[in-house]
C-alpha cells in the first residue's frame, strides 16, 4: 500500500523543524517578491544596467546559504540578489545598490552584478563567468592555512563549466584539499544556449573526474538542497577537501531584462513552474500541519512589507557625490 500523503511529507521533512521551514519559506517568498519588484523597477528606469533575476531558483540560495556558519565565505555569480538576501544582507541595502545609491551594499558603485558585504563574508557577485571559482580556492586555502574550520561556498551557473577557470579551480581545490563547496545552479541555459549544447558530459562527472565527491540534487526542493549542502559543509569542516553540488533548477525570467527569449518555449517554463519550490514547500508544510492559508498570507504580507520598505529606502537614499569618483581606487593608509 502506498504511504499516505501526510506520511510522505513527514518523511520528506525528516530532520527539519517548523521554525526552520518557516524561515526557509519566508526567505524564498521574500526573494521572489524582491525579484519581481526589481523587474518592475527596471521597467520604470529606476534600476539600470544588466539585471539578472533569480525567480525560480530561490530554493538554491535558501537551501545552501542556510547551511553555512557566520565565519564562512561566499562568492557567487552576477545573478546574486537571492544569495545576498539569504546570507542576511538587508534588502534595503541590496535595493539601494540596484538604485546606485550611497546606502547600497557597494555604495552604488557595483550595481546588480557586483553586490558585496564583507562583514557578512559575502565577498561578491562576479560578472565575469567563472572568474570567482579560483578565488574560492584561495579563500579555502586561506581558511586552511589559518587553521580555522571555515570554508568557501562558490556559486555559479552551468555556463561556467565551459571555462578553463572551472577546470583549473577544481583541480587546484582537490590538489590542495581546500575546503570549498562548489555549488552549480544548473538552470539548463547559459544565456540562450541549452546546457546540453555546451557540455559534452554531465557536470557531476567532471567533478568526479577531479576526484571530488559530487552529487546532483533537485534544486527546486529547498530541503534537498539544504541536506546536500549540510553534507558538503561537514565534509569540508572535517578537512576532507572540496565537495561539488549540482542543483537542477530553472529560471522563470529571461537571462537578463534584455533577453528576447527566442530560444525556449512557454511550455517548458510552465512545466518548470509546476515544480515551483515555494509551492512545493507550502504543500509539504500544509500536509504536516505547519501551515495554513492564513499563516501563508502572513508570510506573503511580511515579505511584501519588507520589499516596499526596501524601495522606499532606496528612493530616499542619496546619490553618491561626484567628489567621491576617485575615492578608494587603491587602499592607502589615509583612506582606511
Amino acid at each position, binding site marked *: 500500500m502506498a504511504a499516505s500523503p501526510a506520511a510522505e511529507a513527514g518523511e520528506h521533512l525528516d530532520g527539519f523543524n517548523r521554525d526552520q521551514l518557516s524561515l526557509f519559506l519566508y526567505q524564498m517568498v521574500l526573494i521572489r517578491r524582491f525579484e519581481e519588484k526589481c523587474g518592475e523597477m527596471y521597467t520604470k528606469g529606476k534600476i539600470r544596467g544588466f539585471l539578472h533575476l533569480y525567480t525560480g531558483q530561490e530554493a538554491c540560495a535558501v537551501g545552501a546559504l542556510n547551511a553555512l556558519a557566520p565565519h564562512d565565505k561566499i562568492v557567487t555569480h552576477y545573478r546574486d540578489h537571492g544569495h545576498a538576501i539569504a546570507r542576511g544582507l538587508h534588502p534595503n541595502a541590496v535595493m539601494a545598490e540596484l538604485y546606485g545609491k550611497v546606502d547600497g551594499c557597494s555604495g552604488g*558603485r557595483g550595481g546588480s552584478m557586483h553586490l558585496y558585504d564583507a562583514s557578512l563574508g559575502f565577498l561578491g557577485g562576479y560578472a565575469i563567468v567563472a572568474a570567482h571559482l579560483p578565488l574560492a580556492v584561495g579563500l579555502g586555502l586561506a581558511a586552511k592555512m589559518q587553521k580555522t574550520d571555515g570554508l568557501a561556498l562558490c556559486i555559479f551557473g552551468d555556463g561556467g563549466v565551459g571555462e578553463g577557470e572551472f577546470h583549473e579551480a577544481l583541480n587546484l581545490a582537490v590538489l590542495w584539499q581546500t575546503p570549498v563547496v562548489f555549488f552549480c545552479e544548473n538552470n539548463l541555459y547559459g544565456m*540562450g544556449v541549452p546546457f546540453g549544447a555546451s557540455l559534452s558530459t554531465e557536470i557531476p562527472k567532471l567533478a568526479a573526474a577531479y576526484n571530488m565527491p559530487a552529487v546532483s540534487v533537485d534544486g527546486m526542493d529547498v530541503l534537498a538542497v539544504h541536506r546536500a549542502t549540510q553534507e558538503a559543509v561537514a565534509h569540508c569542516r572535517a578537512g576532507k577537501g572540496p565537495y561539488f553540488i549540482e542543483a537542477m533548477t530553472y529560471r522563470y525570467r529571461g537571462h537578463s531584462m534584455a533577453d528576447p527569449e527566442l530560444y525556449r518555449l512557454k511550455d517548458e517554463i510552465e512545466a518548470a513552474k509546476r515544480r515551483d519550490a515555494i509551492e512545493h514547500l507550502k504543500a509539504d508544510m500544509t500536509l504536516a500541519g505547519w501551515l495554513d492559508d492564513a499563516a501563508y498570507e502572513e508570510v506573503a504580507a511580511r515579505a511584501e512589507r519588507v520589499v516596499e520598505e526596501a524601495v522606499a529606502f532606496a528612493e530616499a537614499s542619496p546619490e553618491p557625490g561626484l567628489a567621491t569618483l576617485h575615492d578608494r581606487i587603491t587602499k592607502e593608509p589615509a583612506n582606511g
Partner: protein
Amino acid sequence: MAEMRFRDALREALREELIRDPRVFLMGEDIGLYGGSYAVTKGLLDEFGPERVLDTPIAESGIVGAGIGAAMGGLRPMVELMTINFSFLALDQIVNSAAKLYYMSNGQINVPMVIRMASGGGSQLAATHSHSLEGLYAHFPGIKVVCPSNPADAKGLLKRAFRDDNTVVFIEHTALYSMKGEVPDDPEFTIEFGKANILREGKDVTIIGYSGSVWQASRAATMLESQEGISAEVIDLRTLRPLDIDTVIASVKKTNRAVIVEDDWKFGGFAGELSAQIMERAFDWLDAPVARVCGKDVPMPYNRNLEFAALPSEEDVVDAVLAML
C-alpha cells in the same frame, strides 16, 4: 544605398561574406539560437545552418584558439566574443598565437581570422563590463584593430576584415548599434584599412576620435562653430592598426592644434601614443600641447551620475579646445 542601423550593416557584411567565401564561418557565444547578444547575427543560424553559424560554450580562450587553428587549417573564421570585457580570457591566444605566428614562422603560417567584440561604457554596467580597450589591442604588433563609427564604415570595414590575411580585432561600440545611416549595397563595397576619414574640414583645430568618440568630437565641432566661431576639423581614424598618421599630421600642420578624444583611460592609452607621434612629426607646427580628452582614471562606477562624470563628453572637448586657443 539603403538606410540601415549599425547592427544591420554588420549583419549584411557577415551575410555577404558567408555567401562570397565558403571558407568563412562564424562561431561565438549566443550568436545562433539567442540571435547575438546585440542582435548582430540574428537570423544567420536559420539562413546558413549550424555548420557555418556555431553557438559555442562560454570558453573564450578555447574558441579563439580553435579559430586560430581553423584559420591555420585553411578556413576564414569569425569569432564573436560578445564583449571586449570577456576577450581578456582569450588574450593569451590573441597575443601569443594569433599575433605571433606569422612572424615567428618567418611567414610560413598566417592567421586570417576576425574577432568581433562590443566595447564601451555608458550603459551602467559597472567596472567589469564597461571597458574601452581598443588601444590595448593596438599595442600588439601582428594584428589589426578596427573601430568603425557609423553603419557604412561598419559594413565596409568588416567585409575588408574577412579579406585580410591576418587576425583582425573588430571592435564595436555598444552605443552605436542602433545608429542609422546610408550603407552601400554593392557586395564588393569594402573600405581599406589605414585610411582615416575626414568627417568635417576646419582650420583652427584638429579633433581626432575613433568608434564612439568620433561623435563627441563631431558634436563638439558643431558647438565650437555655432557658439565660438571656431572651425574644427574632425578626423575619424577608423583603424588604429594600421594607423593613418599621415592624414592626422597633414591636418595638424594646417590647424596647428590637436585634441584626441577617446573613452579609454588616459594613462598609458592610445591617445598618448597618438599625441607622441604628432609631437614627433609636427612639433614645429604645434601652437599648443596636444590635448587628450579621455575617460577618468577610475574603474567604471555603476551609479549613473558617476558614470557620466567618468566618461568624456562633448563639453570636455569644447573646454579642451578653448583652453588651447
